[in-house]
């Protein structure tokens, strides 16, 4: 009822691999997020967008999962961005230091433009 409350979907748009994360990002999210990241990497993604929606709950376990993704992104020379985060979680990302490694955009459209501009 209260535990696993996250949907993860993969899609591609304008050369960017988008991982939609709908719901809570907590310890229960690890396998779903890691699998999605591994899948887009297996397909050769260079630019990856974590597109958050309805995420009113991201906890420290979720942050640890995202640090794990950043670790891999750095190792593979990929580029990682996030969109759709609330102001609160944007602040948390800055506090933790994630913002140094992840480009933060307000929405998906802005992220796609930003990632493609950075490549061009």
């Amino acid at each position, binding site marked *: 009822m*209260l535990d696993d409350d996250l949907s993860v979907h993969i899609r591609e748009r304008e050369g960017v691999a988008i991982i939609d994360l709908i719901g809570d990002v907590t310890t*229960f999210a690890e396998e779903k997020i890691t699998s999605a990241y591994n899948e887009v990497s297996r397909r050769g993604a260079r630019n990856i967008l974590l597109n958050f929606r309805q995420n009113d709950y991201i*906890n*420290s376990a979720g942050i*640890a*999962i995202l*640090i794990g993704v950043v*670790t891999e992104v750095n190792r593979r020379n990929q580029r990682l961005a996030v969109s759709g985060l609330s102001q609160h979680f944007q602040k*948390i990302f800055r506090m933790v230091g994630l913002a140094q490694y992840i480009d933060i955009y307000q929405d998906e459209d802005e992220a796609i433009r930003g990632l493609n501009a950075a490549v061009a």
Partner: protein
Amino acid sequence: MVAGARRGWVKIMANVSPGADPVERVVELHLPSRLGYEKVAMDAAASVARRMGFSADRVEALRTALAEAVTNAIEHGNAHNADTRVLVILTVRPSELVVSVADQGFKPIDKAKIAPTPNIEDSFSRADKGGWGIWLIRELMDEVEFTTAPTGGNQVRMVIHLEKQP
């Protein structure tokens, strides 16, 4: 311990004590030691905080800090033991909200985890990338104190001050 307690059971008790400060109001939550139930505490605390007049960003800070405290109590203090409860007490005062979270102390809190400021660069080379919970509580709340609960468990007492809106 709550006698006859079973999984999935939440006890909520609100009290306005006639002998106490007339403006002091107390809400108690007795939560099952199962991950996910911290969301019940988050929603209850957010509801109280909004009614007190806290701004949206302060309510979000409270939700995050309380989630970490309750999750710690479930995972560490109560070691996921289904027979235990996490006690959350919300005390409304005129200028602040006091939130205490107590477990039943199967495992004492690791004092080494209370003090340090984690560093993301260090996390990249560690297998365990966690350790952010207590730091987040300290960053987001105005006062934080780690003590022993009257029942012998771990207790975190957090205070968030009601700032006057400009």
